[in-house]
């Protein structure tokens, strides 16, 4: 094994200090690894899913510095100094977030693989717009594909969660 080349490969690794779901986290990643790769393969946070790898399905949605993004289109290196929230950070201890509760009550998930992405995106939507119309919900969640539900029960769950969150 060529020691020089090994060193060269290691030099291209990036050291990142970031905050994930409120906890300080440090990791080493390859320059080309995405934040999604890092979350799933290095940090064991497999809630975010890779549905397409090209930003078209939203199953990998996470929040970075208050904005919902496709983590498959963010490099792991970019998380340096930023605050990342994933689906694993939605509940508080054993208390579910109203969105999580309503998704269950309204049967807004069938296979559940798109659900983490929807919950993260829906929370981001309601954080900015606490009283959205049905149209605003649908356009706000257009970046999250669901193949099982036809979106009907998802929209109703978001409406119900919004109503509950407005009650405070």
């Amino acid at each position, binding site marked *: 094994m060529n020691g020089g080349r090994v060193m060269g490969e290691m030099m291209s690794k990036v050291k990142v200090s970031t905050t994930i779901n409120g906890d300080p986290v440090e990791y080493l990643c390859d320059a080309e690894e995405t934040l999604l790769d890092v979350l799933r393969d290095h940090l064991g946070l*497999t809630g975010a899913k890779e549905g397409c790898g090209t930003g078209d399905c939203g199953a990998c949605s996470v929040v970075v510095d208050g904005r919902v993004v496709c983590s498959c289109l963010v490099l792991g290196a970019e998380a340096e100094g930023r605050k990342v929230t994933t689906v694993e950070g939605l509940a508080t201890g054993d208390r579910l977030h109203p969105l999580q509760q309503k998704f*269950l009550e309204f049967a807004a998930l069938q*296979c*559940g*693989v*798109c*659900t983490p992405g929807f919950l993260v995106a829906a929370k981001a939507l309601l954080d900015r717009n606490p009283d959205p119309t049905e149209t605003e919900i649908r356009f706000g969640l257009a970046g999250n*594909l669901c193949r099982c539900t036809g*979106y009907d029960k998802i929209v109703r769950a978001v409406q119900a969660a919004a109503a509950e969150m407005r009650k405070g």
Partner: protein
Amino acid sequence: MPLDATIDPATHKFALVGTRPLRPDGIDKVTGRARFGADASAPGMLVGKILRSPHAHARIRAIDTSKAAKLPGVKAIVTRADFKEGDPGLRDVLHNVMARDKALYDGHAVAAVAATSAAVARKALKLIRVDYEILPHVTDVDEAMKPGAPVLHADMITANVEPAPKKASNIASRCEFGHGDPEIGFKQADLVIARSFKTEATHQGYIEPHACLASVGSDGQGELWVCTQGHYMVRNQCASLLGMDVSKLRVTASEIGGGFGGKTTVFIEPVALALSRKAGRPVKLVMSREEVFRASGPTSSASMDVKIGVTKDGRITAGTAEIRFQGGAFAGSPVEFGAMSAFACYDLEHVKTVGYDVVTNRPKQAAYRAPGAPMVAFAVESVLDELAKKIGMDPIELRLKNAAKEGTRSSYGPKYKRIGLIECLEAARRHPHYKAPLGPNQGRGIAAGFWFNFGGQTCVSLNVNVDGTVALAVGTPDIGGSRASMCLIAAEELGIGYEQVRAIVADTSSLGYNDISEGSRVTFSTGLAVIQAARDATAKLCARAAKTWGIAPDAVVWEKGYAKPASPNAGSFAPLSLADIAKTAGSTGGPIAGHCEVNAEGAGVSFAVHMTDAEVDRETGRVEIKRYTVVQDAGKAIHPSYVEGQYQGGAAQGIGWAINEEYVYGRDGRLQNPGFLDYRIPVASDLPMIDTVIVETPNPGHPYGVRGVGETSIVPPLAAVANAVSAAAGVRLSELPMAPPRVLAAIDAAASRRS
């Protein structure tokens, strides 16, 4: 197991069946804890990647893996030689899993590597040299049937044709169904319409790509974690292809992120196992989204000719269809189901359907929710729509007048038992949607649909825990919320609370063989097995109570969760709950369990009627779905929320199929849109709320009257949407998808015909 003599599902007061409790896998799924196919890992795990043909049709002259093998980090490379050709029934499956002498489609697997990282694996694939001799290709079904078309398989002689052809072709087989003499029927008609229709291949579009983690030890024992609709099928097929005893391979079904029929076969699993065996380490293999589109199993594209005759007062006198399906590079398109289901909704004296199964240079098709039925329903229901308009008859009235009912001889052979088509049509007619006013450039379409539904081999094990709760092991992966339904059924039968039953999907070593979760069979078959297993358990519980009381076992009955003396004559004993009996099980005879191993029969067919309003922008051809209603017969809805979910999901897929989804092939035979950007499934802002009506006409073959619901809901939408769009655009659309360029061209052509 037929309808319970003691239960009339229409009036029986179920304690739990029919309610809407939270699903048992729900918390895990909303917190990200649930583990899907790609969420597992193992110590020492390698990453597997597959090399795929970039050519639609090519002879493989040689594969040189030597350079790739030398790359540091590469631990195993496999080609076709690493698999066992044995079972003739798996010949095409194996051929599709890995190419042999020919690559038959763009994306066909030719080799695979396992390496220490994805980056190394990708690099290794680039170092594999494949010497291809490019051959002419064909991707269109009608083109593939023409003499002179490039032939995929030199040994393909069309089956069921007399006399058998002398030359090989791309037509695998012919089939025919029907009865009577359509020529007589057409002569009786006042109006006959004949039309041709085309649909393009679509993909099930599950959000979770195929993924698995394989681990084979040096003793030949293997473990496979995989997202699949049928882990027993995976076990049996992989064991055969790897030359392993079935018992040596244990397959665990992960949570599955959608299947819809696309995960009812193997693609990457044998490859992962072969790599792991060679490398001596676990191998994780996950398809990219591009690979899913190029190399898993889309549905068939179809070319169809339909002819229907009616009298002026709306009686259908004859119906015929010739349908041509291409199922990709291997025989097995669902053309038979298509031919059988085409006229299944109607009571016809003269009906005939002929189907051709054709191969083309495309990926091998897999089932997609009611395989074969949506396309033919599109064709037949469109012609009926046109006929209704021409004779000035309400479209629901036309269908009611000809609807199949109990005793009708179906177009595919058997006589129907009790069915609910008429109930669905009447419910649709009563629905406020049917009379709602339409706006400018809007049109309404309705369509009926049918699906067979299936039973199948099923095992269930129901074990009573020491505290009186119940562990339920089923063998059918949960693709639609079935664990919730199984818990409802078990709790109903045992007379305990829903939360006291915990259902798991057992691995292949823990439970007997189960057929795949497909054919809308799970609620019916696994549900039926759960009922039987629960009754087996309650019989044993009664025997334990009898022993405790010192009376005969048949003097004890199980009622609402308690063992009770059957009558005052048997003695006066305080009832014993399940918990009471469970607590002392160790001293009354040991562990208490109920079992069922069955080949479930008696599945009931299900019908649906869909209504939709579409708006067409006549300057651009853009279609918007403004309103949608599903009316479908569920027999008995165990968990209504999940039944509604099936109705809505099937409708949404059908809408996408009707207006935007299609496989686009270039002149080079390569797939041009292998991604969610250009393979356009409906997004949330594309759809309105989807209203649902659950009709319950009990299936006489099930104790509660259950009918499968998962598939029927995708059968009517193609036609319902086409009828609505045709009405809104003022011109008949007979080719799918009705994407804007096609709609605009049709509108413009009609306008210039008029002027």
